[in-house]
């Protein structure tokens, strides 16, 4: 089955840098916009 991470192999350095920037952007938005204490709906099932 294919998940988002199904490809293997090394990532070129320039791509690592670009993708790291996107990770930082995502985490910054999580910090800025995410509600504190928000629970996952599915937990406790």
């Amino acid at each position, binding site marked *: 089955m294919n998940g*988002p*991470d199904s490809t293997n192999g090394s*990532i070129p350095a320039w791509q690592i840098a670009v993708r790291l920037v996107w990770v930082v952007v*995502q985490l910054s*938005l999580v910090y800025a916009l995410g509600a*504190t204490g928000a629970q996952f*709906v599915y*937990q*406790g099932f």
Partner: protein
Amino acid sequence: MDRSPLDLYKPDFWYTLAIAVLVLVPLKAPVVRKWAWAAINLAFLGVLLGVPDLWGPLQRQAYLEAARMLGASDLLRVCACLFVAYIVLQAVQRRWLGVIPLALAGLALATLFTIHKLPSTASVYRLADVKSALGAIGFSYAALRLVDALRLTHEGRHAAPDLPSTINYLLPFHMLAAGPIQGYADFMAQPAVPPPLGASDALRAVERIALGLFKKYVIADLLESSLLTPFPTPFVFGAFEVMLFYFLLYLDFSAYSDITVGAGRLMGVATPENFNRPYVARNLVDFWDRWHMSLSQFIYRNIFIPVQMALVRRTGPKSALWCGAVAFLVSFLLCGLWHSLDVRWAMWGMMHALGLVVVVWYRAWLKRRLGREAMNRYRAHLGIRLLAVVLTQAYVAVTLQVVTWPLELST
């Protein structure tokens, strides 16, 4: 004390993950690694359930008080249960006392599951505490893992796990809250020492975690706060809200799964995928091959196959469709009740069973009617595929509404 197993805005989970990565990644000796992983999982349980503060009573030599505190400690009770699970699995493998260990394990699991999932136990004195502890450790997921291990050990397919592996399999900290439900065969098949974590693999794992957090705390929360209203809406907007609720649930649950898979990859702990683009499923059978896959695969291995095979062996291959219908009914009724022991979830399970039976019977009828060539053209037709996807997604969304009814209304 907060008993929520996974509040990602609190640092406990992330500190534990960081420590686990720092400790496990450099470890190359299999036995040491296994015990270190078990220690980390137990430590997280301690954080979750609380460690009794025995220092005071011991200083005062109030040993009885210390013993009482220990006895009342959820952490000790969970550790005791883990040890009992280890003994039971060993007994099953070695065929000690015949089927008694299996029977006792089944009884214990059923009792604890009922306490965990029956809504009314929350108001029963003493059971409320047990219920809270079971919820904290994600008992419904651990129970399924144990069932899988018991079955495979009983069949002789795999050896029973040793003590640290029992801890690591049943209660891995990053899979506590909502799975995935790792199969015992997959757990036993993972290498004792994973391949070294390279920069690219680490990046992929971190990306996965970031994606999960982004899906949950940015996309899902923004959509929910801006589009879902508490007010009754006219039909067409109501239909939109029904679909949105389903989409938000997908974002929420798949986000959690992204985080656990990413965390597992960082630590070198095999963690199964739970989703494979369920929004492109063209029928309910396809849907359950894509949504909460670890659960559907558990049901498939442990309920669907045994029930259907038992029936077909008695009645013959010609009755496979009817046997499949019964197997779906049993499997999805249990699937519904696994979520919660109430009528709403039983109805949800029945609706999915019915949908699956319709899909399978329709497909069999089409095959007979069209023949191979026309069937292949039918399946390849883009318009038919789109319609099938829309109908499937709509059906799944509608069935979800059943479980949102207030409990009093459904009884």
